[in-house]
């Protein structure tokens, strides 16, 4: 088998003209779209990031000054970086563990399981703006239902949530956690269902307890799903925008001014488009480095297939 595979790779590749022509023809919508709407704009935005531009007059080349301004002269830049890192650092672990816990719960076989799955999933199909408005109402400090319930539970001085700079970020995390039973959980659930029962059965014979089984069977075999979920959650979390834009508008006291909010304000409220592009490129390079590092480190803990057993 292996030898055959090896030979297939060694064989000089030959692509028939017809195959090539047809293939290019069918993918041409993407080729055009990628060039026009993605690659072209990206290249243009590199140029713009070295310019001053506000639609009113032609872009003016200013060298590195946008970047220097962002990193040394823009207070809100660093506030937004701190807010975003804080949010990612708390949201990602809680959301990952939460989705995994729900998936483990639904991985039990009992009647009515699909109803629970539907209920858990439902919040994640709610449009994010609708979700933000619903939670703004729930979080209302004086008349909100959440603080009413907290007071009933004996908390006499409940947080003022989105109205206070200390509790606004936790509030936003709670809102986002409402969607914890969404796609992330489904990916975990699909991963759990692919783990063969025999592994658990033979562990039972060896006298392993539930904790052992989780650490030595479930986690390693689930590591590809964990890997995928963490990177997608991190990417989304770094780009958090809509919920803050609608629910808190970056406030109070800039406590929810995340990076994407700052970028939006600079580009589309103050029309500093060149500066906005430089913010976007700082962001992009950071995310790229983060992703590469993550992929590199992942080799140590992500196990593909069953070769370890």
């Amino acid at each position, binding site marked *: 088998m292996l030898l055959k595979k090896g030979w297939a790779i060694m064989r000089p590749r030959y*692509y028939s003209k017809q*195959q*090539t022509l*047809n*293939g*290019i*023809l*069918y*993918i041409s*919508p*993407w080729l*055009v*779209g*990628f060039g026009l709407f*993605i690659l*072209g*704009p990206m290249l243009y*935005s590199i140029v713009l990031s070295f310019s001053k531009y506000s*639609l009113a007059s032609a872009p003016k080349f200013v060298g590195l000054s946008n970047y220097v301004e962002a990193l040394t002269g823009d207070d809100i830049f660093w506030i937004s970086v701190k807010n975003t890192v804080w949010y990612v650092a708390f949201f990602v672990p809680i959301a990952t563990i939460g989705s995994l816990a*729900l998936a483990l*719960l*639904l991985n*039990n076989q*009992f009647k009515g399981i699909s109803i*629970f799955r539907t*209920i*858990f*999933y*439902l919040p994640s199909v*709610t*449009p994010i*703006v*609708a979700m933000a*408005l*619903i*939670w703004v109402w*729930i979080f209302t400090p004086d*008349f909100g*239902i959440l603080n*009413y319930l907290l007071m009933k539970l004996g908390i006499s001085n409940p947080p003022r949530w989105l109205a206070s700079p200390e509790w606004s970020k936790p509030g936003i995390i709670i809102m986002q956690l409402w969607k914890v039973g969404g*796609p992330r959980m*489904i*990916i975990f659930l*699909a991963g759990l269902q692919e783990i063969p029962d025999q592994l658990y059965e033979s562990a039972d014979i060896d006298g392993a307890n539930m904790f052992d089984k989780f650490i030595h069977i479930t986690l390693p075999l689930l590591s590809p799903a964990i*890997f*995928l979920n963490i*990177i997608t959650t991190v*990417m989304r979390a*770094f780009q958090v*925008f809509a919920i803050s834009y*609608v629910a808190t508008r970056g406030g109070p006291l800039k406590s929810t001014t995340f990076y994407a909010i700052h970028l939006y304000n600079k*580009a*589309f409220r103050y029309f500093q*488009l060149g500066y*906005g*592009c430089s913010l*976007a490129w700082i*962001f992009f390079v950071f*995310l790229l480095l983060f*992703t590469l590092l993550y992929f590199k480190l992942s080799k140590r803990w992500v196990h593909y297939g069953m070769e370890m057993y």
Partner: protein
Amino acid sequence: MKTYTLGKQAAKNLNKAFVYSAACIFSVIFLFPIFWTVTTSLKATGTLFTYPPQWFPHPVKWSNYLDVFKDVPFARFIVNTFIITFFSTIGTVVSSVLVAYGFARFKFRGRNVLFGIVLSMMFLPAQIIIIPQFIMFYHLNWIDTFYPLIVPNWFAVQAFPIFIMRQFLMGLPKELDEAAVIDGCNSFAILRKIIIPLSRSAILVVIIFSVTFTWNSLLQPLIYLQSIEKFTIVLGLKLLSLTMEGDSPQYQLLMASTLISIAPVFVLFFSLQKYFIRGIAISGRKG
């Protein structure tokens, strides 16, 4: 021996009880915000801020749902959202089927590299292209039109639908195509007569993705649509939330319009749930 089996049975029952009660508690938590939205949307102005709060609206004010349409042109927003969603989705389906077919069924130099680029686009942050795209559409005079929201979708700019379709097509046996070639079909006829009819479920996954994505998006409409009569539902909600600030915010109207915006997506979800789940499961398996 007997005590052992009994103990095992008891443990099983205990486990079951635990799982059920945990699932029920979580269900209550997840459903509560929706329940509270429904309750609020049916309240009269005077019963919004009572203490203790009313769990069930009394009197039930159904007319809130009509009042929503009086304050802002909400019907207009619904129509706009339907138009944008409809044409975006058709574009996404057509282009992603064609592109996925090209990637799945034809061999050519650079194919894997190009498909790698498609995959990496799933991780591309929107922020990096949104400003230059805005400038481009500004120079095309497309600001405050639906074009910037629709046209790119006809060129397969969404990576996820291409990925889903291509994964599905790779799983279809090639013998089907080969038989059709012998019958004298060209590649487009194969796509139309064999591939597409077999790919209904994958196409449905793409449709669901595109509809929910377009329906829920905030950033793009926010940037491109400026006059109120062009607004989508999402922008309309944002507008409503601003007009309701002040001494007596009309939360019942805001919650009623929120529910109106949610309803179509929920209907779609309840009727095609299995396809929502399938799309995600496919993307997870590749991971």
